[in-house]
């Protein structure tokens, strides 16, 4: 290796270490909650298994047309005026058909109307920002809490997106510098970790990092895309590419499908029936009634195979006469490379490429990234034990926080169960961060091995009682759920909780034996913790 390469390697190694320490803790919260929300849809179904989301395709004929008119009348009466042209989204949520109506000149709020799928009556009609809407539903708030924690660390607005965007960029830089420092050769990828505690931590960190690197790269690039696109890039691009004309860009994104010239308003039901014939074997996702009541009125019927995001298709119908116009491209009116790129970005980030199998792999790899960060904190703690006791304590606190994430998740589920009502979001926030702080204090004060055993044990207990919490809230246990066709899949969520609890319990039980198997030796002078660690002094 040349002197120049060696110097660069040292700089990258130091950055990798400091950026890892600086970003890993918030990063671990993002990775852990991201791993949970891979199955967010199932978690939401589990939390509302007594009132499943209605299938749009199975609603009585004409139900959606009646629901749209009912909601429009209710909103016109509520706001005392002509209803006018709006974009309407029709979807399903636990126990309700939901309609959201855009508000002219207000891109932050929308009118949300929930319709009872059995009677067609309005359950509630409120004007919300998306963020407030998310917090307003106690039952669905469990999944949404973890989603908001993952997407914006519960910080509202663009600041939260910027925060997670910076974490994604730092993760990308950790991948890049880690690749340069520990270039994965065949030997590195299969080398068993050495037996000294601190070398075992370092070797496992390198080994897991090398194997999970392609996944981490994909997650960081797609995550940065989602965070920065909404927070800063799209507004900048609108200014540069479209001269600041947001409406022009939206018109291009929606696409011009050549709707007929008419004042008539089409009936939606025949479009749903036609979509089912054109895409057999798929489910109806949601309906977009764009420019509804206006000249450019058209309807996009989304069809998909659950768990296979790449199967998503949009069928476009004329909003005046109901005739089929075209299959919708991802962006704009015609298929393009950019649209195809965009079609892959979501599934690559969320793991719903090819159903349950890829979702499970994505969840496990996400959790592995948390383990990677935990090993890094462990290494930092042991390294500082002699050099800087204060630094070692901070590292142990952060490691305690990492290992305490299952405890925090269990506490959040318990808070959700016991605080069903308007204060559920506050209760979950306090439970999550309160237990995280408690686990960090435990990490700082207790010996490392004992702390990990305690946290794994508490995490196992927290996750083991989750099925009971679900039963307490919904009144339906896993065995009863198996007998309900629309809720049977939610029994697997209970199984997932119990399996995770079992694995954590096993980890807690086997930790002392594992600790004994490692040599508690200090390194000989000059002996590296990481096999390919560059000299930094």
């Amino acid at each position, binding site marked *: 290796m040349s002197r*120049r390469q060696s*110097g*660069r390697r040292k*700089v*990258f190694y*130091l*950055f990798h270490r*400091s*950026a890892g320490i600086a970003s890993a803790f918030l990063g671990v919260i993002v990775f852990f909650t991201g791993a949970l929300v891979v199955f967010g849809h199932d978690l939401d179904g589990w939390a509302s298994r007594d009132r499943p989301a209605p299938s749009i395709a199975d609603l009585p004929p004409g139900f959606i047309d009646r629901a749209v008119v009912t909601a429009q009348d209710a909103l016109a009466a509520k706001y005392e005026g002509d209803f006018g042209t709006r974009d309407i989204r029709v979807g399903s949520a636990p126990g309700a058909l939901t309609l959201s109506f855009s508000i002219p000149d207000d891109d932050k709020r929308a009118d949300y109307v929930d319709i009872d799928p059995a009677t067609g009556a309005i359950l509630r009609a409120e004007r919300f920002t998306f963020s407030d809407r998310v917090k307003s539903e106690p039952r669905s708030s469990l999944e949404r809490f973890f989603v908001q924690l993952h997407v914006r660390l519960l910080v509202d607005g663009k600041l939260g997106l910027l925060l997670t965007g910076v974490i*994604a*960029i730092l993760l*990308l*830089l950790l991948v*890049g*510098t880690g690749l*340069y420092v520990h270039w994965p050769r065949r030997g590195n990828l299969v080398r068993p970790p050495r037996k000294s505690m601190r070398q075992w931590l370092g070797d496992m960190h390198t080994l897991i990092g090398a194997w999970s690197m392609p996944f981490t790269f994909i997650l*960081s*690039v797609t995550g*940065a*895309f989602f965070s*920065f*696109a909404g927070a*800063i*890039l*799209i507004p*900048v*691009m609108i200014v*540069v*590419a479209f*001269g600041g004309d947001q409406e022009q*860009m939206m018109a*291009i*994104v929606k*696409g011009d499908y050549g709707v007929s010239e008419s004042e008539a308003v089409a009936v939606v039901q025949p479009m749903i029936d036609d979509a089912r014939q054109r895409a057999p074997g798929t489910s109806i996702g949601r309906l977009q009634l764009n420019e509804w009541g206006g000249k450019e009125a058209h309807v996009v019927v989304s069809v998909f195979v659950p768990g296979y995001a790449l199967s998503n298709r949009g069928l476009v119908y004329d909003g005046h006469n109901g005739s089929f116009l075209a299959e919708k*491209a*991802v*962006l*704009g*009116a*015609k*298929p*393009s*490379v*950019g*649209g195809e*790129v*965009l079609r892959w*970005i979501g599934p690559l980030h969320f793991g719903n490429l090819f159903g349950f199998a890829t979702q499970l792999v994505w969840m496990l790899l996400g959790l592995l990234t948390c383990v990677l960060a935990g090993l890094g904190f462990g290494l930092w703690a042991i390294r500082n034990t002699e050099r800087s006791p204060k630094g070692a304590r901070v590292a142990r606190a952060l490691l305690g926080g990492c290992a305490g994430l299952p405890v925090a998740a269990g506490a959040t589920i318990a808070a959700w169960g016991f605080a069903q009502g308007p204060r559920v979001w506050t209760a979950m926030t306090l439970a999550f961060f309160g237990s995280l702080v408690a686990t960090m204090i435990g990490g700082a004060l207790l010996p490392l091995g004992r702390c990990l055993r305690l946290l794994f044990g508490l995490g196992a207990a927290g996750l083991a009682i989750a099925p009971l919490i679900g039963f307490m809230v919904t009144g339906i246990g896993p065995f009863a759920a198996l007998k309900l066709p629309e809720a049977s899949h939610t029994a697997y969520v209970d199984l997932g909780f119990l399996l995770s609890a079992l694995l954590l319990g096993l980890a807690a039980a086997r930790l002392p034996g594992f600790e004994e198997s490692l040599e508690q030796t200090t390194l000989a002078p000059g002996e590296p913790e990481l096999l390919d660690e560059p000299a930094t*002094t």
Partner: protein
Amino acid sequence: MNSKAPRRRWLREVLILLATFVVALIVSASMTTFLPEGPARIDHVIFAVVAFPLVWALAFMLLLGAQRRRRAWIMTGAITVAALVPVIGRFVS
């Protein structure tokens, strides 16, 4: 060992991170002026947004790992100015 060295290193890393953010933002914005719009007429924006984190990471690693730092900064500055020209041209024309 110089006790100020780690702090100076941190400051340098943060400075490079901020500077390369600006570089990536300008280069990505500039991409929308010369990349093809495609049949959907919005491909140039999608490519630019996807490229943003990659440009940021690449520029950061080039500046951080540069052995001839001054030359690296000058090169990066020149690329940024070159990228800024078509962006400004959009507003002037």
